[in-house]
């Protein structure tokens, strides 16, 4: 039975960050990192900086416009030394020199603005943002770190590399599912929740808890797994949604266990739940339509879940492109049967040339 695998493959391709964005994400952060590492008035500590966030987690969707990186400084977070809000201001002051420095490299129109826990650098011409997050990393980036909160004027604990590792472990345990479901969920949010969006980190927290702690398994084809995931999240949060005292979820950080959704307002939470409910029902109808053999109806319903611009009606051209890359004699096959355009391991075997033979004999 057609599981709409190719439709979902094309959907996932369509929500990938476009090439020019990926190029910007490769080219621009090193320039800013290098600038800061060499800045006299903003001393940093080796190993100085590290890429983090959804781009580094390989969970970016759509027009990825920002990349996050950590910049390491010396200090004692529990003594608020350096003072959290002062550090953000110092970082901003240092980065205010960036436009002039980059102008020499041909990058005009760079704007720098301070935020609560970071400084944004906006490359206007490329419409690309960098989020520079200062941190104190007493035991290096691989262990929990501290980031300054300008609003509260203290340092908060965080473990972004732990999250990256957790994502990698989850993907290894659920290959082809964890990251794809994470990206589909973000895209679903982007399509349906344009205002008061839940933060990407909350969605990732929900996802990690579902797989790691709540027994969620994505054994079904990707569409069905997505429907099950939305249902899982809805049911998990339903008791809070059903309360009448303005309660909101307190999502526990998957690494450090503290509350990461403390500022999720009730109206925004209710909007999220309404969208989740509609999404899970529509997804279930799409799955049922496919089970009943009504592919056209299933495609229509999935287009309402993911957007007509992203979920394709016809996949023939897409399939031709994919098929052209794996004609016998060219691809490799892994011991799981996975067909690969190129070998990724010494265990992968080249698929020899052949010609498949015969029409079905009736």
């Amino acid at each position: 039975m057609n599981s709409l695998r190719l439709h979902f493959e094309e959907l996932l391709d369509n929500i990938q960050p476009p090439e020019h964005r990926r190029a910007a994400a490769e080219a621009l952060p090193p320039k800013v990192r290098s600038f800061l590492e060499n800045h006299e008035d903003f001393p940093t500590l080796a190993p100085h900086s590290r890429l983090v966030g959804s781009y580094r987690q390989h969970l970016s969707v759509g027009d990825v416009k920002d990349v996050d990186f950590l910049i390491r400084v010396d200090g004692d977070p529990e003594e608020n030394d350096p003072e959290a809000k002062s550090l953000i201001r110092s970082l901003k002051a240092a980065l205010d020199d960036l436009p002039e420095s980059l102008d020499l490299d041909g990058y005009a129109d760079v704007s720098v603005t301070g935020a609560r826990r970071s400084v944004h650098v906006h490359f206007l011409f490329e419409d690309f943002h960098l989020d520079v997050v200062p941190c104190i990393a007493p035991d290096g980036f691989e262990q929990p770190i501290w980031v300054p909160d300008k609003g509260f004027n203290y340092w908060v604990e965080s473990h972004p590399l732990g999250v990256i590792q957790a994502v990698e472990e989850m993907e290894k345990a659920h290959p082809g599912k964890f990251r794809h479901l994470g990206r589909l969920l973000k895209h679903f949010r982007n399509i349906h929740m344009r205002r008061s969006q839940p933060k990407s980190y909350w969605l990732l927290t929900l996802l990690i808890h579902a797989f790691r702690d709540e027994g969620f398994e994505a054994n079904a084809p990707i569409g069905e797994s997505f429907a099950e995931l939305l249902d899982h999240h809805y049911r998990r949060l339903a008791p809070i949604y059903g309360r009448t005292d303005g309660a909101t979820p307190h999502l526990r950080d998957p690494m450090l266990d503290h509350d990461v959704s403390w500022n999720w307002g009730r109206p925004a939470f209710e909007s999220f739940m309404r969208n989740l409910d509609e999404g899970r029902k529509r997804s279930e109808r799409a799955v049922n339509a496919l089970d009943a053999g009504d592919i056209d109806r299933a495609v229509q319903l999935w287009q309402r879940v993911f957007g007509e611009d992203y979920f394709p009606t016809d996949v023939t051209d897409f399939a031709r492109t994919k098929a052209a890359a794996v004609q016998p004699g060219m691809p490799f096959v892994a011991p799981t049967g996975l067909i690969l355009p190129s070998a990724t391991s010494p265990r992968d075997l080249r698929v020899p040339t052949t010609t498949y033979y015969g029409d079905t004999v009736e």
Partner: protein
Amino acid sequence: MAVQVFHMRSKWPGFRRSGDAKTSTWHGKLQPHELSSAYDVSVQYTIPKPPKVRVLSPLIDPKAPHLFSDKSLCLYWPEEWSWHAHRLLADAVLPWSALWLYFYEIWLATGEWMGPSAPHAPQGKE
């Protein structure tokens, strides 16, 4: 048979064998794409006959191209290639089966077999 067993064990460790020195059947899973289902597959080999590969589940659409009437997969064109005892299941039959499933999923979605194809009628390669 010992050579076949050795190569299957080392290259396709997920496949389990039953049988004897003359006839063996291997059962395992092939998943041609990360978004695909994992197909339960059996490979039956009786020396010196050509091996037969069947997909046990999920059920293959009986209208799919490149299936024999006994539901085994047509993996090669006899005018181009033939089986003999020195061929290795692990190096040819299993890889072709995985790729067959890849093209099968494309056929399900588009109605076209997008791999190289030769019909039963003697008209040559398409």
